């Protein structure tokens, strides 16, 4: 995960993919699963899992 105040309005995003963690994590529910979310955004399941883990860790903190 990368955070830069000048990119994506400061929201954390998946490095090299350029999609915010919040967006990918939300897509898991919206698309009914990690595989479908990965397909919808043309990223790997690992990217989706990393984003979901990151958002979960924020919510648990």
């Amino acid at each position, binding site marked *: 995960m990368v955070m830069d105040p000048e990119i994506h309005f400061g929201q954390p995003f998946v490095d090299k993919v350029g999609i915010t963690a919040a967006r990918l994590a*939300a897509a898991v529910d919206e698309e009914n699963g990690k595989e479908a979310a990965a397909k919808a*955004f043309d990223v790997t399941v690992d990217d989706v899992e990393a984003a979901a883990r990151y958002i979960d860790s924020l919510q648990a903190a």
Partner: protein
Amino acid sequence: MNELVRFLFDENTGAPFVEALRTIVVLDKRHPTEIGHTNVLFGAGAKDNVWVPKISEGKWIVISEDRGVNSGRGDKLPTLCLQHRITHILVLPALLKHGGQFEKMRALLSVWPELLNVATKPPGTCFRLKYANSERNRFKLEERPFSQLPAPAHGA
């Protein structure tokens, strides 16, 4: 022939969605349309203060998502778009929660004539794409008055 209308999706929309929409709208010969994606035009992770002014020059209409109060994006993007006079459309979260990317596609195509008309509105106008009724079988594109937008920080 009508004037070219350019729609630009940001990273909140996946590349496959953009490609699918492009394939559909090219069938509309009466209304020339260009569909772009920020990650393709500017690269993944482009700085906001670089890509936003550039799309202002290109007369793009931005289609993004209001990710809700926690992301802060719901306010920041309209502020920056207003500052640079970029017309933009926010897809509301309820629509995505209900049916994901397919629902977004269904909504965009349902209001397609109105979307094309957005290009005639004053630059910087903000719209929201939302359900029109509780049955969630109709959509509407609602103009958000300038008075309801967050005040630009400076330079507007």
